[in-house]
């Protein structure tokens, strides 16, 4: 298994027509890499190129379309490359083998993770805070309703949850009375967003609120989370994994 850190990237340039024991050369090299336990390899087919013999390989000429350039790339640790290089050079024959120092930032994962990790925002329990944001329905942020933009921003920041309430009557920072009249098409109601998450996450989000809310009121109070349950998205049957926290009197 490839580890993050220093590694070697090996590139082998071949011609499509080359064969080895009757099979295409690239497939026999790929088999060799596979059975020697190389972490991964990719074969790409070029659309045009030329090599040591200065013979132009191109797909435009039908008669030589089976001589297109082929590139095999793989990334492995120094030790592994040292171990297989001799045989590889022999297999590559007239082709070019290139090595390059590289750094693995993140090794590839197995396609089937044993258990999907629980997203960080689903781990809150116990002590938390509720943040209520009071604003007006007509407040806008970059041409969309402010409350909608805030919900999107909260979600993008992995905040546990938010609900938007529309008031039927109210007044606030700007001292205008908001009244929701059912027969008036334009809404000028009061809006309240109720956001719950840990104190640190809400405080970390406050600068974003500050940027977006020009006029309004933000109120924090302490709450105890008794239950925050979610349905695991990958489970075949609905299964509820809950993180119950002790209930405070």
């Amino acid at each position, binding site marked *: 298994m490839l580890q993050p850190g220093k590694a070697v990237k090996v590139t082998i340039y071949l011609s499509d027509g080359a064969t080895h024991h009757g099979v295409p050369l690239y497939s026999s090299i790929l088999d060799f890499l596979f059975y020697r336990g190389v972490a991964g390899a990719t074969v790409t087919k070029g659309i045009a190129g030329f090599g040591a013999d200065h013979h132009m390989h191109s797909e435009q000429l039908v008669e030589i379309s089976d001589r297109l350039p082929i590139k095999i790339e793989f990334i492995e640790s120094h030790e592994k490359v040292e171990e297989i290089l001799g045989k590889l050079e022999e297999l590559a024959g007239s082709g070019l083998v290139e090595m390059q120092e590289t750094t693995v930032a993140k090794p590839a994962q197995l396609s089937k993770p044993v258990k999907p990790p629980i997203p960080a925002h689903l781990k809150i329990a116990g002590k938390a805070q509720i943040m*209520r944001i*009071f604003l007006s329905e007509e407040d806008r942020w970059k041409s969309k309703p402010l409350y909608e933009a805030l919900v999107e921003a909260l979600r993008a920041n992995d905040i546990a949850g938010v609900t938007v*309430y*529309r*008031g*039927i*009557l*109210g*007044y*606030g*920072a*700007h001292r205008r*009375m908001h009244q929701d009249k*059912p027969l008036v098409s334009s809404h000028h109601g*009061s809006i*309240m967003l109720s956001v719950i998450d840990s104190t640190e996450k809400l405080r970390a989000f*406050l600068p974003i*609120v*500050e940027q977006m*809310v*020009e*006029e*309004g*009121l*933000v*109120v*924090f*109070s302490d709450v105890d989370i008794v239950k925050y349950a979610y349905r695991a998205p990958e489970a075949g049957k609905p299964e509820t994994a809950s993180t119950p926290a002790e209930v405070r009197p």
Partner: protein
Amino acid sequence: MKEEFTARLLRVHFGEDDLWQGKPLHEAILAKCAELGIEEATVFRGIEGYGAASRIRHASHWPYSKDAPIQISIIGTEEQIGKLTPYLDAMVEEGLVAASTVEVVRYSRTPERS
């Protein structure tokens, strides 16, 4: 402009059909809040609920339904809320008042910009 301070949050729960001197109770409470100079007051209509009288209230799809639960969120200083409480005692015949201490961040437009 940004200001931070500690305040009291009052939540008053009652029904939409409750009246005070012939006017809807929530309008009367809001008018009293404005009179006392309270920072923020918002009335919410719930879609379902039950309260002091253990009667389930529903808001129907008909917008003029008068049976929905009402909640008013009031945010003001300790002193303002103290002044409001006796009025609420007199006005809310059947309902619930819950109070908590909150930290407030207020954003307002600077006068020269608006």
